[in-house]
């Protein structure tokens, strides 16, 4: 039972994080295509945002199994 709940929770976390990463990529692509001369700055900011969103999923993966035991 616990395993099922765990799998569902991690799947949901992956879903949310994937949506967030997609939004970041989408808006960064749009910004880059509208202003190609700002690509350097946009890429850096995009990578920072990606890192912060990605961390949420990593926290879920490493923290949730420990708390459910």
């Amino acid at each position, binding site marked *: 039972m616990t395993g099922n709940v765990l799998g569902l929770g991690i799947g949901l976390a992956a879903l949310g994080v994937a949506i967030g990463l997609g939004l970041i990529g989408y808006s960064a692509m749009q910004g880059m295509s509208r202003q190609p001369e700002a690509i350097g700055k946009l890429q*850096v900011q995009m990578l*920072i945002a990606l890192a912060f969103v990605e961390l949420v999923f990593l926290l879920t*993966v490493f923290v949730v199994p420990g708390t459910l035991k």
Partner: protein
Amino acid sequence: MDVFLIRTTTSLLASSEGAAQAGEHAGPHMLSWVALFVYVGLVLAILFGFLAYAKKGLQTRVFKNPITQATEQVYLFIEQMCVGTIGPHGRKYIPYIMTLWLVIFVGNMVALFMPAAPTADLSFNLGLALVSIMYVQYEGMRSNGVLGHFRHFAGPKLGIALILISGIIFVIEIISELMKNVSLSLRLFGNIEGGHQAVEAMNHLGEGIMIGPLPFPIPFGFFLLPIKLLTVVVQAMIFTLLTCVYLSLVTHHEEEHDGHSHGAEVSAAH
């Protein structure tokens, strides 16, 4: 002597691959101490080898040695990152950021070829993160003074009536400063170790394939290597970039003066 060396190396590698003895720095996310130091030694050996080779091309007026050229490009990349993120006074942080980037990058590259790596170990990453955050605190105290650095945690000046709010902000900022260690180390560890786990899972997928009566296992994890290569570069960059951002957050008061004088110089020059 050779026999001794070979025997020592073999036993070191065996203990690095295998089970850590109970009670000595063992856990689900950790190598044994010996293994960790073997892999850190490997990383340092690769790094010093490359740099020693790159140094051979430094005497010529134009760098003809390809390794030297590559190292120059790495330096330019780090310089651009420091100066772009921290500002004009970010040039003095280049040695630290460069060291951090090289160690993390080579550690991640080792993770591509080896069953384990220093950056796939939570304790090594936590060590790197602790060094970075401590250095950020030190730089903040050096540029703002000890009291100024701690006042910086309390947010904007709200006056005596809202001292409760300032206190709450102070506590939250201290907690978030401590959590920066966790987030930096866990991000690197999760990406590298997660890559390992994914490769192992995909290899496991192709284990039972048979062609007729013959077993024909296919290592599907091999196809993840390009993505892992991307992760290697991006994670090394993100760790150092976030360190730069934290440095710029604690030292940006003096940068304002620099910016103004710089702007004045530019407008005078035109």
